[in-house]
């Protein structure tokens, strides 16, 4: 076979991540180069750094953003030079992983990169408490 059996999902850039980390003490997650077993309750700092790695990874590898700019702690979201489509593409990395839709991408534009990550982290935290919609 020339293709994997989950190729139907690849058109969505949807990687099957079921066997990868989930928060809440059920799996593995961590900074680059480290692997920590996570105990519940969810560790805010670890998730924050994981979000940073994930967003940076996407921006550098797929959107072609210069990795050097992340050395600046005052980096603004606007400095990423993403148009509105680019912004929602970036956010899809988070949405895909955590399984919820971020309501208004434009709220991040005036923020620094660090503020955006903190805001997303809070959304992920809140999402963990809300039940996902199910079929009636």
């Amino acid at each position, binding site marked *: 076979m020339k293709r994997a059996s989950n190729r139907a999902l690849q*058109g969505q850039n949807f990687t099957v991540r079921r066997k990868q980390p989930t928060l809440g003490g059920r799996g593995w997650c961590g900074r680059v180069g480290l692997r920590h077993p996570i105990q519940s309750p969810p560790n805010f700092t670890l998730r924050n750094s994981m979000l940073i790695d994930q967003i940076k990874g996407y921006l550098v590898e797929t959107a072609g953003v210069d990795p050097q700019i992340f050395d600046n702690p005052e980096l603004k979201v606007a400095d990423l030079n993403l148009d509105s489509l680019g912004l929602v593409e970036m956010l*899809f990395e988070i*949405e895909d992983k955590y399984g919820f839709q971020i309501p208004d991408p434009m709220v991040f534009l005036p923020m620094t990169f660090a503020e955006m990550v903190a805001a997303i982290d809070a959304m992920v935290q809140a999402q963990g408490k809300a039940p996902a919609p199910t079929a009636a």
Partner: protein
Amino acid sequence: MHPVVVTGSGIICPLGADKATTFAAALDARSGIGARPTDIATWLPHVVVAQAAVEPQTLLERADHGLDRATQFALVATAQAAAQAGFASHPDDAHRVGVFVGIGFAGSQTTDSLYARFYQTLSDPSLQHKDPTVMHPLTVPRIMANAAAAAITMRYGLRGPSNTYSVACASSAIALGEAYRAIRHGYLDAALVVGTEAMLNPGAMLGWNALRVMAKPDATDPSRSCRPFSQDRNGFVIGEGAAALVLESAGRSRRRGGAVLAEVAGYGCTSDAAHLTAPSVQGQAQAMEQALQEAGLAAHQIQYINAHGTATDAGDVIETQSIRKAFGGAADRVAVSSTKSMHGHLIGAAGALEFALSIEALNSGSLPPTAHLSVPDPRCDLDYIPLQARHGCELDAVMSNSFAFGGSNVSLIARRYASA
């Protein structure tokens, strides 16, 4: 009227990831039909398909990996065609250059993935913490039928019209014909014309399976499953891929100093206005007659026809009768083959692929055969070049036919270009 010439072409299809490999395979009567993606095999074990020889993504930059598969095929074929033509991107006359694309099922792969993702998230207990409605934000621009045309205009900086024709199996034959007319009548000086299709996904194949037009797998050799004009034919095999051609006015080509592959000489286009899927002798013959008339050629001046030749019972018999009606006494002297026996039916890409192969035949003097034609159907009694290629032929003009569900009929003629 401005003479229109082809200055480059490119192919990625089940027979090869480039034009030379594809044409060589066709002359060898090699088949690209066989292996199936496992997600199709699971539900449709009796279906054979013709997958592209190479994954298009492996030939593209990472930034293109998110594009729909059909757009990826289109970009691969276009790059080859532009390279052969020496066609520079962002040309000075960008507003005089158009993009004409033919595609049947648009971003079929992305559509299929959308539904697959929704229902999988909904039904998989391990995904219950996820909202099934979360989809990639570029889902719509990937699905839209003009996704390939848009990608090509942006990549090559072309500012003329970018039109997409979705006319089932005739899509890219019509894209070629309409681009030819736009240049011939002076609206444009050049066009990139592309046919592309990527629908080898479970959803689309379930639909094709229900229509009962697909070939049953050959019991001994699945690669022999598509047998046009053969007594034991039983349907077609869906393929995937793309073909691209650079069309230019002879004047633009001359000013650039590029080589010319052929002149586009005639285009006929009709509708049956009769049946959703059944073909019609009258509509097909009229398309061929129109093309001959526009080219100023008599039927006996065509030496090769690349038939639509899908290997359905009705299609092959009607096309035989149509060629007889349009060609009269010359029908018994023209060589005809269906290369779908090898590359399968590329639907929206079929017209461009088969026209490009016809031009290769014109220039090489070698005619690709109708593969697997051991026992001809007595009702299909033309010279269908059975089994083996024919070499050393003297060719002046060739025809390529494309007949679509919905009753659209297209015939295109290419001839050797004699510069004035």
